[in-house]
């Protein structure tokens, strides 16, 4: 994408912010069909016990306590606990990333590089607008066999 060899692509949010912070105009194009959404969470195996179990919970508590959430939000993802993430973000950042408002000040990427000039609006708008338009979740669907076959046919066409 950054080398100019690719013009359209399915991309992760951090990759888009990275390409944009390199100065390449790259937009997230919302489709009228809706979004494909991914979710990731933590699962603890039942074999965990004692110190290891405590440590696992400590890690999850830290992860949800705000700093990591704010980092994820600034990459364009949505953290699982928005309240704690909000506390770690500036109000103007929250307005840009979550409320779909025009940026009051320059928006910085998590590593501090300039991402967007003041005045820009996030592609796709607010949290409600984006998450309200999720058409499918990235999971193994009932029509898995059919879809894989259709994908191979698409490539062979």
């Amino acid at each position, binding site marked *: 994408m950054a080398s100019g060899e690719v013009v359209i692509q399915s991309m992760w949010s951090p990759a888009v912010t990275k390409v944009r912070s390199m100065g390449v105009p790259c937009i997230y194009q919302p489709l009228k069909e809706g979004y494909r959404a991914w979710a990731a969470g933590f699962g603890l195996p039942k074999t965990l016990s004692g110190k290891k179990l405590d440590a696992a919970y400590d890690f999850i508590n830290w992860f949800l306590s705000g700093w990591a959430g704010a980092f994820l939000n600034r990459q364009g993802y949505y953290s699982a606990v928005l309240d704690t993430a909000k506390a770690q973000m500036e109000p103007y950042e929250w307005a840009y990333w979550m409320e779909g408002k025009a940026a009051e000040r320059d928006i910085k990427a998590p590593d501090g590089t300039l991402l967007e000039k003041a005045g820009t609006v996030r592609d796709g708008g607010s949290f409600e607008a984006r998450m309200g338009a999720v058409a499918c979740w990235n999971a193994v669907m009932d029509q*898995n*066999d059919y879809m894989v076959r259709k994908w191979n046919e698409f*490539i*062979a*066409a």
Partner: protein
Amino acid sequence: MSDGGAGGTALLRPSAVPATTGVGVWLRRLASRAAAPYWQAAPLALVFAFFFVLPLVVTVVVSLWRYNEYSITPALVGDNYASVFSGCLAELPSLCLTFKTYLSTLKFCVLAWALTLLLGFTVAYFLTFHVRSLTGQMTLFLVCTIPFWTSNVIRMISWVPLLGRNGLVNSFLVSAGLTREPLTWLLFSDFSVALAFVHLYTMFMIVPIFNSMSRIDRALLEAARDAGASGWQALWNVVVPLSKPGIVIGSIFVVTMVMGDYVTIGVMGGQQIASVGKVIQVQLSYLQFPLAAANAVVLLAVVLMVIAAMTRLVDVRKEL
């Protein structure tokens, strides 16, 4: 077996092991000279059995299993093969997925084979008959192997900055005024895939053909010239027939590698060109192991048929 006599003499010698008991006979057989070749072949046979025969058997067995989104269950059903060929008869004359994919794969196979053969034969001919000194031959041969010092993937990726939209070739063409717009068929196209195959696999043609050619008696070429043959006639009637084993071995290398390839076609074709290997890879990535195994077995059968046809043209064993 010419060493049967040697085995006989070993048996005539008196031995410490009594020959009457069963164990004694066994030990003597194991220690006899006749058994030596089997012992010598055993390590490689074991390696082959474990790393080649066993996986192949497992693939064939799994291709008969059932599967769903999250599990595979032992069974003995032909469903996966039916799925591979589903619609292939009903949809005629338009091609089903499998036929279309094989057609695309075979196209690259023929292209890569013809181009590597032409280049490989020419290079081998030059090395054998035009480079007189052995040092010269060795040096040029080593030069041919230099690209192999880097990995396959790096060699492919390095085409991108050369052939891309903003690549060296396009920026030269545009700045020289030869084209107004950058050429888009240079990269992520049939052209780039064929180019990468030729780049990657020509060496596999050069080596066996060079090997065959270097065994040709130079006196034969002189005899051909004395008998009035032109250069082309000598090439076609003397050099080509005597290089056949090398040509067939090189062809087997190239054809098998191109038929099973999915990395080159994926990287150089922008993931949008069909190949049998790619279909298998997509199915594996969605955990359809039995279906992928069935596809692999079909591919194996096709490649074996191609190789059988090629070895029918030349008896490679006899010629070696």
